[in-house]
């Protein structure tokens, strides 16, 4: 069964398509626009729920009421206020942005490499970002204090950004020859690069002291806990910039589906498109990994799911991926912090538990194809 057959089965797209009365035939833009509207609604609900729920009984409504009504602060309301405004809110916002960044980066990588299995985590960009961050944690202590102080909260995201960017460029250079990017080379190179960055990270862990080890463990697990407004200020601008820039690549990514030569024939500045996409992905993934560690499978599951419903047109796929990625990550986070409350399951475990079987299912359905 191919991906296309799936679209025909009632469980997926066609029911939605009929209900949206698509016209003319083969045009899924009406379904796509409807999906976007639904996703905006879901995003708002997910953000609200994420701020309203948690291990403590703090009430978001009461806090908002207190803020608006100017009620006198009691000890209890102070506590609630801190929980809602300084713990849940930055966590919800950053969680949404990270989910959006990872999912959209997945969609961009898949479009650029013309392969539905490309993903920033799979091809080693995330591990490159993690290496950058770990490098900063371990070796940062020996760097000039003035430099560290001037970078402040931006040090880790910047290091992860550079790590992700260098990995992506390396990957792209290796996989591209004579203007053609080899998918097989890319996946193999991604595995090799992941192993290499993993080994270097291992050396750094070996060198690290106890405090640094604790900090490093944080990356491996992947978590949205400990989000602060400082971290929002450090990571959100990079992610937001990527989220704003990437939709402008939609037309080029659509054209490049037919190959880089065909994209050039259709008027796309291919080289500029590739570099913009790579820098945006490295930035978004780097900033996300820097504050949340390795959260896998969002980048591969979300765009795939959406292609089944709205098709591969990047003008809709990119924003829809961002929204659904945010919604799913917040959902996973709500699960992560409630199923064993008051303790927390690292969110990376939840996304891998749900994402890995989905990924295997995708592979099973592609078995008939010979290209990968």
């Amino acid at each position, binding site marked *: 069964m*191919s*991906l*296309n057959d799936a*679209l025909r089965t009632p469980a997926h797209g066609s029911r939605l398509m009929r209900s949206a009365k698509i016209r*003319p*035939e*083969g*045009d*899924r833009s009406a379904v796509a626009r409807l999906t976007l509207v639904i996703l905006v609604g879901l995003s708002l609900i997910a953000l609200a729920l994420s701020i309203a729920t948690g291990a403590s009984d703090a009430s978001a409504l009461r806090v908002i009421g207190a803020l608006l009504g100017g009620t006198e602060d009691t000890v209890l309301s102070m506590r609630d206020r801190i929980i809602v405004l300084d713990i849940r809110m930055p966590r919800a916002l950053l969680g949404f942005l990270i989910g959006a960044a990872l999912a959209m980066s997945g969609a961009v990588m898949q479009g650029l490499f*013309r*392969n*539905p299995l490309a993903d920033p985590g799979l091809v080693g960009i995330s591990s490159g970002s993690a290496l950058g961050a770990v490098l900063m944690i371990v070796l940062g202590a020996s760097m000039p204090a003035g430099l560290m102080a001037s970078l402040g909260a931006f040090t880790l995201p910047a290091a992860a950004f550079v790590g992700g960017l260098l990995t992506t460029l390396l990957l792209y250079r290796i996989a591209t020859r*004579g203007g053609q990017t080899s998918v097989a080379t890319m996946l193999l190179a991604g595995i090799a690069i992941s192993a290499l960055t993993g080994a270097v990270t291992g050396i750094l862990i070996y060198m690290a002291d106890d405090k640094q080890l604790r900090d490093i463990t944080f990356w491996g697990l992947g978590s949205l806990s400990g989000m602060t407004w400082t971290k929002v200020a450090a990571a959100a601008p990079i992610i937001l910039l990527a989220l704003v820039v990437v939709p402008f690549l939609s*037309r080029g990514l*659509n*054209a490049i*589906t*037919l*190959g880089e*030569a*065909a994209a*050039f*024939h*259709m*008027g*796309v*500045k*291919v080289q500029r498109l590739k570099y913009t996409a790579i820098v945006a992905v490295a930035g978004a993934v780097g900033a996300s990994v820097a504050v949340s560690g390795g959260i896998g499978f969002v980048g591969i599951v979300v765009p795939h799911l959406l*292609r089944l419903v709205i*098709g*591969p*047109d990047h003008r809709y796929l990119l924003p829809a991926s961002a929204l659904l990625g945010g919604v799913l990550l917040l959902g996973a986070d709500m699960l992560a912090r409630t199923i064993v409350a008051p303790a927390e399951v690292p969110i990376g475990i939840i996304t891998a538990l749900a994402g890995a079987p989905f990924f295997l299912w995708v592979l099973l359905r592609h078995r008939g194809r010979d*290209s990968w």
Partner: protein
Amino acid sequence: MIDARNLTVSLSGKTIVHSVSLAAKAGEITAIVGPNGSGKTTTMKAIAGELPSKGEITLNGHDIRALEPWQLAVKRAVLPQAATIAFPFTVREIVRLGLTVGPNRHAERVDAITAEALAAVDLGGFAGRFYQELSGGEQQRVQLARVLSQIWEPVLDGEPCFLMLDEPVSALDIRHQLTIMQLARRYCEGGGGVIAVMHDLNLTAMFADHMVMMKNGTVAHAGRPAAVMTDDAMEAVFGCRMRINGVPGPGVPFVLPHTASY
């Protein structure tokens, strides 16, 4: 017109095309023929601006290397030999990709041109089908519809537009081969130009106004098909003795596209 002079193309250090000169005029089908590996596709890619090359290439008098990709895209469109697509696009979505540059990108024209382009390649009613589910010949015609829609008007701002087709009929049955060659002819009658890499010598003889025979990366013969297609030229270029307008011996059936009524 497209004018290439002393075109030399090297790939990975090996020279594939040696100082080839060819001119494709508006209103004419220019066919490039020759054996496998003679540099036909490479020449076409260089003229399309896709491969780095030495020598002069002008499109309507403009140096193509000085034009931006979008400036080229509104004046020439290129049909590649084969295209695989990783994502489940519908036929309509593929054809619409051709309408993202140039004067036809406006929403009210997109649906009309998409429908007309699909009808022109005899794929009316295929808009809702998935590209990957089509046969090779149908896919080739979808790509042609996309390429055609990119430069839908044969003349834009007083300048001719050019279709560059790399083996446009290679996967098609005889009826659709004729349909597509007729389409190319009509594009020329509308004031545009067509450059096509061809393997079918009979269709070339029927439809080409100008014929360029390539061998080993150079132009062996060029001119009107009636002038170029001689027994000696055929043997020199293709390496087998054939008689132009010869008839096989008794008992061997043969069929020529020339005799088709359509």
